[in-house]
């Protein structure tokens, strides 16, 4: 799938408070280059130009929810295989399994700990990289 280092993250989240905390966590702690979109529509419109290495998608958003946004992103030529992580409070085993069936590389539970968010993203990125190398 990819062997590049993880640098550019597209983060899609409608809640401003959570955006702000995640931005601090991913930029200042993780050192990532982050592009934030407040809706699925914005993500679909801006994702190709930003060309992310990985996408973080909130599941529950007004308008296009996370799964609908993922489906729309997959139709964009340069984003057919970009790893996507869902961020959601609904993390029971059955729900996580459903997200993986939809094509997510992993799931991060909300609310997240800002101090460890970047580590969780990196863990999932490594699992994707290892699978693609196998």
């Amino acid at each position, binding site marked *: 799938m990819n062997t590049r280092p993880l640098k550019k993250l597209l983060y899609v989240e409608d*809640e401003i408070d959570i955006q702000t*905390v995640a*931005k*601090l966590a991913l930029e*200042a702690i993780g050192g990532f280059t982050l592009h934030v979109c407040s809706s699925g529509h914005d993500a679909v419109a801006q994702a190709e130009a930003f060309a992310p290495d990985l996408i973080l998608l909130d599941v529950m958003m007004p308008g296009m929810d996370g799964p609908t946004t993922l489906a729309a992103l997959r139709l964009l030529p340069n984003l057919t295989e970009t790893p996507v992580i869902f961020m959601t*409070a609904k993390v029971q085993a059955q729900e996580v399994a459903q997200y993986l069936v939809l094509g997510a590389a992993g799931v991060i539970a*909300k609310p997240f700990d*800002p101090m460890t968010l970047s580590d969780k993203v990196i863990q999932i990125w490594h699992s994707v990289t290892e699978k693609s190398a196998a």
Partner: protein
Amino acid sequence: MITDVNMDIKDIQIQLEKMRQAFLVQLPQRMRMMESELLEIQEAIQEEKSDLLHDLLTQAYRSAHSLTGAGGTFGLQEVTESARELEDVLSHFMQSNTHLDNQDYTAILGQFGKLKTVVTATYESKF
């Protein structure tokens, strides 16, 4: 907000605490907004405008969901748990697809009252 990627952990923790304080300051306003959303639901029930109910319930659900997520992110676990219980009640009525009556509204209002108590206690303990 512009994030400085060269911040050290202490600076980051200070920034997070500032964000948390800003969130806490907004809590009473959030609760007033949710209260007015619930009043709109009550009016729709009383005036038998059932066609409006799903949208109004969805709006209130999103507000509760927002509080659930943000509260937890800022370490306010009790707020998150109580807001999630309100989410569950609203979600039940959104999915039941039936006409709500005053008894249903009382159930929603009861859960909101519990949330308000938790939020008020949280707010007062911080200021």
